[in-house]
């Protein structure tokens, strides 16, 4: 079961013309948060809210669907808050996306070449050239 590129661009119009590439087949095994936390995390569905029997979430971080909880998660993984999405050699950046109420929706991780990689739920992983494409798509 999977979505093709056209379906992706219908749901996320900001991807149109962005040169995004699908880089993995559909997979239920991990989600965007796990993938943003590192390419080795392909066996976990990381999410704080809902039935704790269904998901992974570090016990040191509140199981709250808030940006603060997600920031605490990435702080636990040695990330700190930065000013922008510009590529800085030697640093790996993660972007968190939330809705108008501040409820987290998604995360993406910057690759060493400046592109961003992201896993869409149980769909595919894709790489895109700029954060603007995601912002146009995810932040509304």
């Amino acid at each position, binding site marked *: 079961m999977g979505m093709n590129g056209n379906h992706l661009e219908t749901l996320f119009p900001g991807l149109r013309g962005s040169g995004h590439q699908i880089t993995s087949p559909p997979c239920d095994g991990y989600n965007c948060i796990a993938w943003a936390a590192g390419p080795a995390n392909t066996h976990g*569905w990381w999410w704080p809210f809902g039935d704790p029997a269904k998901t992974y979430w570090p016990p040191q971080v509140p199981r709250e669907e808030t940006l603060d909880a997600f920031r605490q998660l990435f702080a636990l993984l040695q990330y700190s808050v930065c000013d922008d999405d510009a590529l800085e050699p030697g640093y790996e950046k993660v972007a968190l996306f939330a809705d108008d109420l501040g409820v987290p929706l998604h995360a993406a991780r910057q690759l060493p070449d400046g592109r961003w990689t992201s896993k869409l739920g149980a769909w595919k992983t894709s790489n895109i050239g700029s954060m603007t494409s995601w912002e146009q798509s995810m932040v509304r």
Partner: protein
Amino acid sequence: MATAPAEQTRDKPTTETVEERFRRLEAIWMAEVGHHSSTTKLSNHPAFQEIVRMGQAVVPFLLRDLEIRPRLWVWALPEITKADPVPVSDRGNIAKMSEAWLRWARANGYEW
């Protein structure tokens, strides 16, 4: 996110088999919320809930899918069977959860 109303596509022929109904609901579920990471958005979706309400009849199809690759059906199986075979240490690890459910199903006489 823009999604098509599920109700428009959920009408089905009365001759639909269990598998056809399951696959139709799966397709709706994935198309409408499959891109989300939120467990509440995924688990509370009407198509997912309708799969759960199909009860024991759908379990062999869920297990068949789990044998192919890890699937989020590990979230539906506890609601249907009321069992909880996943060790606490494996919670959230969809691959290990899938394996635990397959072991449990074999031990409990399920065939798929």
